[in-house]
C-alpha cells in the first residue's frame, strides 16, 4: 500500500492540479455564460436571468441540467461516427490547452520549452471539431458554417502567429512561464512595448473563437446556428463548452504574453503594495452586496431560500476573506519563513491572472453587444489586406528596433515605440489605399 502511494506520489500533485483546472474552467464557463447574459441584458435595457436563485445566480446549473436532459437528436443521413466524434474533439482540444497556461508561479500543470507552439497547435485542433461537425450533419447550413469557419481560421491564424512572434522577440523564449518571468525582469508588460501586436492578437483571438463581429460560422440570422445547427442536448452543450473554454484560453494566452500573466499591476512599486489586499476587498464588497440584496428581498416565505442563499454567499465570502487575512504566526510552527499573510500571498497570482482574463472576456461580451457582423468577404479582406500586412510590418520594425537598441545602445522602449510608429504609418497607408 505504501509502495503504491510512493510510486503514485509524483503523479498525485499534477493530477490534483489537472482536476482543479478542469473543474475550475468548467465552472468559469458556466458562469461566463451567466455573465454574458447579464452583461448583454444590462447593455440592452433588460435584466437578464432573474428567476433561478437570487439574481439568477443558479441559472447556469438549471441550463446545464436542461441541456443534459434534452433529447439527443441525430439527423437522418448524418455520418454517425464523425457526428459523435466532432464535439468531443472540440472539447478535448480546448481543455488540453489549459495544461500549458501558467495561472500563477506556483500553479500550472506543466511548462514546456515550446509551450506557446503547443498551445497554437492544440487550439488549432479544435477547429477540426467544427469542420467535422458541420460536414457530418449532412445539411447545408452546418456545411456553410464549417466552410466559413475553416477559411476564417486559416486567415486569422497567420496574423495571430505574427502577433505572437512580436511578443516572443521581447521574451526570447517559447516557455509560457519564462515569458511572464521576462516581463517581470524587464519591469514592463509587453502590451506597452508592442501595442500593435496586442491589438492584432485581440482581433485575431475574437476571430479564432468565432465571436461577434466575426461570428460568421454560427451567424444565427444567416445560417440558423451554423455548424451546430443539427446538434442538440448534450452534444450541443459540448460545443458550447468548447467555445467558451476557447474564449478563456485565448484570453489567457493574451494575458500571459502581453498583460504580464500573474503579475500584479505595478508589481515593482513598493508604495502600491496595498494592492495585494485587492482580493480581500473584492470579497468584502461581494459580501456587502449579498447582505444588501438579502435585506432588499421581501421577507416572505417564497423568498426565504433565496435570502438564505444570499446570506450564505455573503457569510462564505466574509469567511474566505478572513481566511486570507490569517497571519502567519497563528499557524502551527509559528509560520517560520512564511510571508505575513500566507494564504493571501498564495492566491495573488491566480487572482491577478483571472482578473485580467475577465477584463478580456468582458471585452468579448461588450463587442457582442455593440457590433454588427462582418460579411464573409469583408472578413477575409480585413484579414489578408490589413491584419496580416500590419502584423508583418510590426514584426519587421520591432526586430529592427531590437537590433538597433542592442547595437547602438538606445533605450529599448523608445526604440520599440519608434518601430510601433512606423507600423502605424504602414497601417494608415493601407487604410488610405483601401478607401
Amino acid at each position, binding site marked *: 500500500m505504501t509502495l503504491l502511494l510512493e510510486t503514485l506520489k509524483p503523479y498525485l500533485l499534477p493530477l490534483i492540479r489537472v482536476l482543479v483546472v478542469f473543474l475550475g474552467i468548467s465552472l468559469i464557463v458556466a458562469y461566463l455564460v451567466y455573465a454574458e447574459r447579464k452583461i448583454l441584458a444590462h447593455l440592452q*435595457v433588460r435584466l437578464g436571468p432573474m428567476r433561478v436563485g437570487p439574481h439568477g445566480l443558479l441559472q447556469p446549473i438549471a441550463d446545464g441540467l436542461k441541456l443534459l436532459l434534452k433529447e439527443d437528436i441525430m439527423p437522418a443521413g448524418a455520418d454517425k461516427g464523425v457526428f459523435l466524434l466532432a464535439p468531443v474533439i472540440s472539447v478535448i482540444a480546448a481543455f488540453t490547452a489549459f495544461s500549458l497556461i501558467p495561472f500563477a508561479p506556483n500553479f500550472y500543470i506543466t511548462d514546456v520549452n515550446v509551450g506557446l507552439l503547443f498551445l497554437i497547435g492544440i487550439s488549432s485542433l479544435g477547429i477540426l471539431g467544427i469542420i467535422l461537425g458541420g460536414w457530418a450533419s449532412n445539411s447545408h447550413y452546418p456545411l456553410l458554417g464549417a466552410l*466559413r469557419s475553416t477559411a476564417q481560421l486559416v486567415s486569422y491564424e497567420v496574423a495571430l502567429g505574427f502577433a505572437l512572434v512580436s511578443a516572443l522577440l521581447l521574451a526570447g523564449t517559447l516557455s509560457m512561464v519564462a515569458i511572464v518571468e521576462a516581463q517581470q525582469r524587464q519591469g514592463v508588460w509587453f502590451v506597452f512595448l508592442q501595442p500593435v501586436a496586442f491589438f492584432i492578437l485581440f482581433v485575431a483571438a475574437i476571430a479564432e473563437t468565432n465571436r461577434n463581429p466575426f461570428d460568421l460560422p454560427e451567424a444565427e*440570422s444567416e445560417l440558423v446556428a451554423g455548424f451546430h445547427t443539427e446538434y442538440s442536448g448534450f452534444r450541443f452543450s459540448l460545443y458550447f463548452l468548447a467555445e467558451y473554454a476557447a474564449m478563456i484560453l485565448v484570453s489567457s494566452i493574451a494575458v500571459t504574453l502581453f498583460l504580464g500573466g500573474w503579475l500584479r499591476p505595478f508589481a515593482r512599486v513598493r508604495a502600491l503594495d496595498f494592492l495585494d489586499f485587492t482580493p480581500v476587498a473584492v470579497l468584502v464588497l461581494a459580501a456587502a452586496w449579498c447582505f444588501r440584496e438579502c435585506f432588499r428581498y421581501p421577507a416572505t416565505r417564497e423568498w426565504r431560500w433565496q435570502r438564505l442563499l444570499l446570506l450564505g454567499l455573503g457569510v462564505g465570502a466574509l469567511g474566505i476573506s478572513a481566511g486570507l487575512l490569517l497571519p502567519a504566526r497563528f499557524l502551527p510552527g509559528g509560520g517560520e519563513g512564511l510571508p505575513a499573510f500566507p494564504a493571501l500571498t498564495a492566491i495573488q497570482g491566480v487572482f491577478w491572472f483571472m482578473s485580467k482574463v475577465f477584463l478580456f472576456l468582458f471585452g468579448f461580451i461588450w463587442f457582442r453587444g455593440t457590433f454588427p457582423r462582418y460579411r*464573409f468577404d*469583408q472578413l477575409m479582406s480585413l484579414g489578408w489586406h490589413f491584419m496580416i500586412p500590419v502584423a508583418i510590418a510590426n514584426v519587421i520594425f520591432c526586430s529592427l528596433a531590437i537590433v538597433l537598441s542592442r547595437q547602438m545602445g538606445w533605450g529599448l522602449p523608445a526604440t520599440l515605440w519608434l518601430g510601433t510608429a512606423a507600423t502605424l504609418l504602414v497601417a494608415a497607408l493601407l487604410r488610405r489605399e483601401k478607401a
Partner: protein
Amino acid sequence: MAQPQDISTTVLGADEIILNMGPQHPATHGVLRVKLKLDGEKVIGSECIIGYLHRGVEKIGENRSYPQFAPYVDRTDYVAAVSNGLGYCEAVERLLGVEAPPRARWVRTILTELQRIASHLLWLGTHALDIGAITPVFYTFREREEILKIFEKYCGARLTTHAFRIGGLQYETYDGFEEDVKKFCRDFEEKVDEYGELLTENRIWVERTRNVGILTAQDAIDLGVTGPVLRGSGVRWDIRKAFPYAAYAQFEFDIPIGERGDTYDRYLVRMEEMRQARRIILQAVDSIPEGPILARVGKVIKPPPGEVYHSIEAPKGELGYYIVSDGTIQPYRLRIRPPSFINLEAFDKMVRGHLVADVVAIIGTLDIVLGEVDR
C-alpha cells in the same frame, strides 16, 4: 474498364448548392421561404415561395359588410394596423362620397404617423439584428412600446387596433392625448440620434449595407416598388405629397431620398422618415381642430354602385384598396394592393451576385411583412 470521366463534372463538381431558407428561418421575417441557388456562398439565383400565411382576406371582404371587414385589414400588415385601417376607411368614404370631419382627419394623421414610426422602429431593430447587431432591437422596442401605449390608451388595442371607423373616428381622444404624443415626440428626437450613433457611422454597418442590393431608379419604377424602397433609389414619390389624404396637405415635411439605391440609402431614408413623421405629428398635435369626429354616414353603410381605388402612403409603400360596389352592404369585389408583396418582386434582382449574408440584409431592407404579402 472504367470510363475516363471529366473530373470537373464528377468528383469535384462542387458547382451549385440549392439552399432552402425558411419558411422557418430566423431572418426571413415570418414565413417567407426563399430557395437560393448558390455557388459557394454567392447567390446565382433565387425564388420566393409565398403563401404560407394566406388567409384569403380579399375573399372574406366579399362576404362581410363594409364595417365588418374593417378589423380584417388590420391583420394584413399587422405591424402597421392603423395605416391599413386608414386606407380602408378612406376608400369606403370615397365610395360613399363623404369626407371625415377635420378633427377626425387630424387625429388620423397623428396616429398614422405614430404608426409609421412604430413600423420603422420594428424594421430598424430587426434589420440590425439580421446584420448581427443584437442591441438596437431592444432600444427600438422600448420606444415602440411608448407608441403602443398611446394606441392602447386611445382604443384599447395595441397591435390590431381597428382605430378608425368609416366616416371618421369612433372614439374621442382621451384626456392627455396631446401631452402623451408631445412627450413621446420630445423624447424621441434624441432616441433616433442614439440609433444613429450605434449604426450610421459604424464601419461594419456601412460596409455591410453600402452597395448591397442596389436598385436603380429605373428598375425601381419598372418593378413598381413604392415607399422607402423607391425613395431610396432616388425617386421623389410620396403619396402624402402627390395625392394628399387625411390632413397631410396642411403640414410641412420633406421627402428624403437616397442616391445610390443601396441598402444604406434605404436605411438613411427610413431614419429620416422617422424624423419627418415626428415633425408632422408635432405640427398636427398643436392644431387639432375642435368639432365632430364622425361624418354622417348612416347606420347601414350601403355605397352606391361603382368602383374606387384609393391608396395611401403606408410605412412600407403604396397601400391601395380597390373596391367595387354593387349597391349592397357587401363589396362586390375587394382587392388590396400590398406594398410588401410588390416590393418583394425586386428581391431577385437585388440578391443576384451577392452573398448569403446579403440575402438577409436585403430581406430586411425590403421591410416585408408576410401577413401583407400573403394576405
